[in-house]
């Protein structure tokens, strides 16, 4: 029987810049995510959600709403203030991944999660070959066989439609779309159950955007992995996501099936957001 428990469970996640004060710590209303008393910024404010097996969860919101910060916190790129997250594939989802050692966090990053950044410079080593970039994940996972590593790198590059004969080339010589595809192949190197995509199509032209999104859809269909896709572009979310969460000022203000969110939004902000797309 298939395990239908969430692959990732996030509870009460907070990323705060600043010490906080009695006012904001008591949950009093903030001014656009900022405490009017101590000026601490609550970039991610008590966010909770579940990611189910094989689904694509879209996180949408305007710039500065905290969606990328939340994703990076989940990928351990950013320190959290407090909160809990559980991965089903890690100790059967019984251990809060924010409370474990750095070594274990590294293990999760290498085995249980893949990340594709908006800016490829953050996700790739531009002075190493594309093959070595993919190899990095495999090496971190303990593979010490050049043949096996190279075979896997070739397979993944082919999978993301990058000519295999460019395996020795450095990504800095690639186009923006190709760099994103190298990032995707790197993220998939160890078959992680969760893939996180942070504004992957921003800055790409429309035809390249479509190719990258098609690729992600195909990979998700073939591998059955769960994906969190963060975007401020509702068209991307409409095309990709099964479910969507809308973020505003660090909080998830509305969550539901993508069609429901886009066709029949309840929250006032979501209505404005959807309206701005249509007209």
């Amino acid at each position, binding site marked *: 029987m298939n395990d239908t428990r969430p692959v990732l469970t996030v509870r009460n996640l907070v990323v705060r810049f600043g010490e906080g004060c009695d006012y904001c710590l008591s949950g009093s209303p903030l001014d656009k995510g900022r405490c009017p008393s101590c000026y601490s910024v609550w970039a991610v404010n008590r966010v909770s959600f579940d990611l189910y097996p094989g689904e694509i969860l879209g996180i949408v919101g305007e710039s500065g709403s905290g969606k990328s910060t939340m994703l990076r916190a989940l990928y351990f790129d950013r320190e959290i203030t407090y909160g809990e997250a559980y991965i089903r594939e890690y100790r059967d989802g019984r251990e809060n991944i924010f409370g474990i050692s750095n070594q274990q966090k590294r293990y999760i990053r290498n085995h249980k999660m893949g990340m594709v950044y908006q800016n490829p410079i953050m996700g790739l080593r531009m002075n190493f*070959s594309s093959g070595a970039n993919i190899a990095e994940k495999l090496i971190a996972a303990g593979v010490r066989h050049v043949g096996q590593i190279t075979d896997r790198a070739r397979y993944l590059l082919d999978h993301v439609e990058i000519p295999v004969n460019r395996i020795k080339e450095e990504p800095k010589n690639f186009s923006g779309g190709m760099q994103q595809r190298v990032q995707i192949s790197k993220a998939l190197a160890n078959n992680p159950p969760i893939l996180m995509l942070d504004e992957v199509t921003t800055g790409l032209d429309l035809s390249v955007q479509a190719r990258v999104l098609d690729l992600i859809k195909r990979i998700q269909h073939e591998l059955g992995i769960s994906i969190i896709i963060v975007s401020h572009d509702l068209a991307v979310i409409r095309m990709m996501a099964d479910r969507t969460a809308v973020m505003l000022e660090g909080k998830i203000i509305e969550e539901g099936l993508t069609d429901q969110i886009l066709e029949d939004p309840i929250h006032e902000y979501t209505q404005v957001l959807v309206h701005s797309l249509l007209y």
Partner: protein
Amino acid sequence: MTETILNGHYNFAFLDEGAKREIRRSVLKAVAIPGYQVPFGSRELPISRGWGTGGLQITLSIIGKKDCLKVIDQGSDDSVNAVSIRKLITATTGVLTTTDTQASTIIQSRHRIPEEKMRNDQILVLQVPNPDPLKSVSPKEKESRNLHAEAEYSGIWLRLYEKIIKYGRTTMGADHPVMVAGRYVMNPSPIPRFDNPKLNLSDCLCLFGAGREKKIYAVPPYTEVVSLAYEDHPFTIEDVSSRSCKYCGATNVYFDEIFDSVTQEHYFQCSDSGYCEKRRK
């Protein structure tokens, strides 16, 4: 000259006793944790940083009046750097010096381990320019310390992998990283790959000093030292099977390749000049 200096101008072995004590403490810590880089307060010396001040400070700190010293630079006893260091040490300690590996108790070396097997009562001090193998992966000291603490060496392995897929082999001629006692990855100073196996289970104590980078590390006797290599690309040393020394006829040693511009002849001679000299006698 030596007498003048010893009679009051300088402390024995140039450094003050407090400095030597602190360096010896760092050495002890390094010996206790093989391969771990111990920070130390690198002193000013009458030679520039980067010219062997790390090794020199270790030598000055551990040397005693009964020691017999050998100093070599790239295998040669007579290069300018070796001569300068030897002069400074003898002028401030008055110890005996030698070119014979077996007769020495302390050998300070740059870029080579002597050809003759060293004994358990000897100490090899190596000068190190770049102590941290993670420096190229993570230039920030704090980050590289964390990576060492977590034994996270993927970046080093990645560098090896990159060389292999680009050139078909690891192209590092010197300073090929090694795993010490199964825990710390260490730069063995820029010794040629030929010398890496000599560190493994060696009888003598090997001390590494980086004066500019202010680090000391050590490989105690009989410690396992394994050169990093992939399963399908084993570590190999330079192939010297078809070479022999023009002067002493030695084979299976590390050679310098010499070009004689008069005769237009290429030939090889032992890199370890003391060893070559001894064989010729």
